[in-house]
């Protein structure tokens, strides 16, 4: 064949290849899958995989490749793995990180190369405020928010002397800051065990000594399970009420801590009894697929995929245009399992927070029974500091 035909055929072939690869959506899921802090990560991964399956493997109508990796609960390792996902596997969206310290190390890798980080859990104040980035989205909450709800509840209940326990890392400090913002009583002490610490003998002793009205603890994953068990075993008087957030009182902890959690009040944004069609469908599908009830981590992973799905549909499947994708995500119109959901100016959610109590359902399983609304249409305290749009 003559030269022109050969050139045009090669050109067409190249366009074909480019078009074929452009159509593929690659989502990188990096989460904690090993160690004592892995229980939330496993739920997160399961929620995400369920969503992709519900969409028949085509998020936003595009062929989707899900690449799952374990961050090993180590910021340094997470950074390297993020580099691999972003630079080698060339994912368009990175998501899945549970813990804020890991997020702070790894998210910049995606953001610096113009990609997108969609947070399905951690929401450090840095990214909500001064260091907000047009590529950083959250489908979960800002770290302080859930604790602000708890602080408001504690305030409304009239607790005078409260002791706070949170791990010593960014989200832990966000937690105590958030609680204090809405709690006007006296915080008699703040204990900051090391992130990942599992033996709380020291903290429990100090706590017992000070006889608080209430103990508010934020201890995610394995930390919370151990704390609850050791607290109960230590025989602290009932006068000190235990109060927590969904991070230590949801399906991921119920399985391991058993009845140690029964009757504990906690604040959160979603529960298995949330009354929306999307939620009921999600819970039923999750139970069918995995044989257990989903935690809120799973619900956030599910929501993350649904959010990407709505955005990709909105731009007609053009996933290789990061700018278009970012714009579509911020104008997001997807239906979250939690019901009311919208994104604020800093791309963090504006939503309701509820008070729940750990109860038993008809089948004898533990779950969070939603009691009342604590904060309505709540954005976060850092939105005004975010100058980027």
């Amino acid at each position, binding site marked *: 064949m003559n030269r022109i035909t050969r050139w045009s055929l090669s050109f067409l072939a190249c366009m074909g290849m480019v078009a074929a690869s452009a159509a593929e959506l690659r989502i990188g899921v990096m989460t904690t899958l090993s160690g004592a802090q892995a229980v939330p990560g496993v739920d997160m991964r399961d929620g995400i995989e369920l969503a992709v399956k519900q969409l028949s493997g085509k998020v936003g109508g595009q062929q989707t490749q899900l690449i799952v990796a374990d961050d090993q609960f180590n910021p340094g390792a997470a950074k390297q793995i993020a580099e691999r996902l972003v*630079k080698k596997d060339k994912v368009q969206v990175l998501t899945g990180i549970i813990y804020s310290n890991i997020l702070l190390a790894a998210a910049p890798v995606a953001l610096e190369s113009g990609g997108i980080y969609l947070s399905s859990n951690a929401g450090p104040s840095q990214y909500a405020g001064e260091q907000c980035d047009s590529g950083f989205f959250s489908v979960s909450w800002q770290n302080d928010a859930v604790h602000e709800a708890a602080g408001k509840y504690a305030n409304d209940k009239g607790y005078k002397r409260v002791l706070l326990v949170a791990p010593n890392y960014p989200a832990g400090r966000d937690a105590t800051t958030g609680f204090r913002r809405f709690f006007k009583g006296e915080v008699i002490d703040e204990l900051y065990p090391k992130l990942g610490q599992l033996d709380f003998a020291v903290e429990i002793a100090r706590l017992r000594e000070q006889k608080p009205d209430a103990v508010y603890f934020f201890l995610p994953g394995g930390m919370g399970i151990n704390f609850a068990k050791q607290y109960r075993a230590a025989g602290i008087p009932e006068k000190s009420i235990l109060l927590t957030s969904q991070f230590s009182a949801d399906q991921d902890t119920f399985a391991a801590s058993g009845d140690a959690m029964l009757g504990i009040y906690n604040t959160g944004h979603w529960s298995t009894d949330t009354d929306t069609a999307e939620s009921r469908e999600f819970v039923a599908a999750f139970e069918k697929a995995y044989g257990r009830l989903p935690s809120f981590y799973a619900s956030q992973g599910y929501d993350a995929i649904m959010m990407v799905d709505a955005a990709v549909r909105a731009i007609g499947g053009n996933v290789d245009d990061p700018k278009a994708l970012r714009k579509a995500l911020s104008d997001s119109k997807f239906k979250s399992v939690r019901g009311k959901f919208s994104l604020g100016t800093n791309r963090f959610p504006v939503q309701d927070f509820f008070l729940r109590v750990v109860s038993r359902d008809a089948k004898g399983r533990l779950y969070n029974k939603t009691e009342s609304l604590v904060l309505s249409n709540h954005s976060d305290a850092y939105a005004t500091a975010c100058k980027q749009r």
Partner: protein
Amino acid sequence: MNRGLIAVIVAGLGLLVLPMVLVSMGQGFYLGLLTRIMIYALAATSLNLILGYGGMVSFGHAAFLGIGGYAVAIAAQHGIGTAWVAWPMALGAVALFATVIGAISLRTQGVHFLMITLALAQMVYYVFVSLRGYGGDDGLSMSRRSSFGWEAWWPTRGDTGFYYLVLALLALALLCAHRLVRSHFGRVLIGVRENEARMSTIGYPVYRYKLAAFVIAAVLCGLAGVLNVELNRFISPSVMHWSQSGMLMVIVIVGGLGRPWAGVVGATVFLGLEEVLSHYTERWQLPLGLLLLALVLARVAGWRLPRDTGKSLQHV
């Protein structure tokens, strides 16, 4: 020209051309991997100096990786973004720490030396874990690489430019180590390894030689630490954990303890294996452990360090 030199030149040329090839193939990711291998080769070469040639089993060598790296990261946090200031500061800090740690540890021998270096390194580790202001356990990020001020013609801030910088520094370090080992200093060091009592009796200030070697090796390792933090723009205390020192030892052993190329060979094999094996399984440490065990058992009959420097010590 002997075969060895030809091989080195060919390898060197290959490494020079490799970035262009990788980038054109769209595999820029592997540039980062190669840079990491070279950095670990540098660290392992420095350990080989005291472990292989000097016979000092230090379990705290990774501390110098950390000190060098943190010095640069902390300087960056305080606004010192130029490498001409940050790097010498880092190396100076490493030299200082190494002198102190060495002065204390080298008064002991054998397993006690091992324990003390380990303990002192752990102390350094805990210091950095406690420094909340510099990230503590979560690590410290650098927003940009330090600049040499010659970005126009050697863009070290970019991946390719940095790769060449590391290559150049590694080559320089290998040359220095090579010359050092063949010098009088190197001979004495080997002599001390072989029979410390004899060297001392002859009249050599053994302690001083060991300390000098210790500090030199530490500074080289500190340089590796500096390059490491510049590569990743991130450092955390876990880089100084004793298990990292153990890994460095493994790298040197795999590369051939006491041989001049131990660091390079070891790092290539170790990190290369890690990369290849992790494609197939996340459980790559199992074959690595088995390989190491096999290596050790094979040598159990005669754990001999090569007397490769040629001249015998009867001249001493």
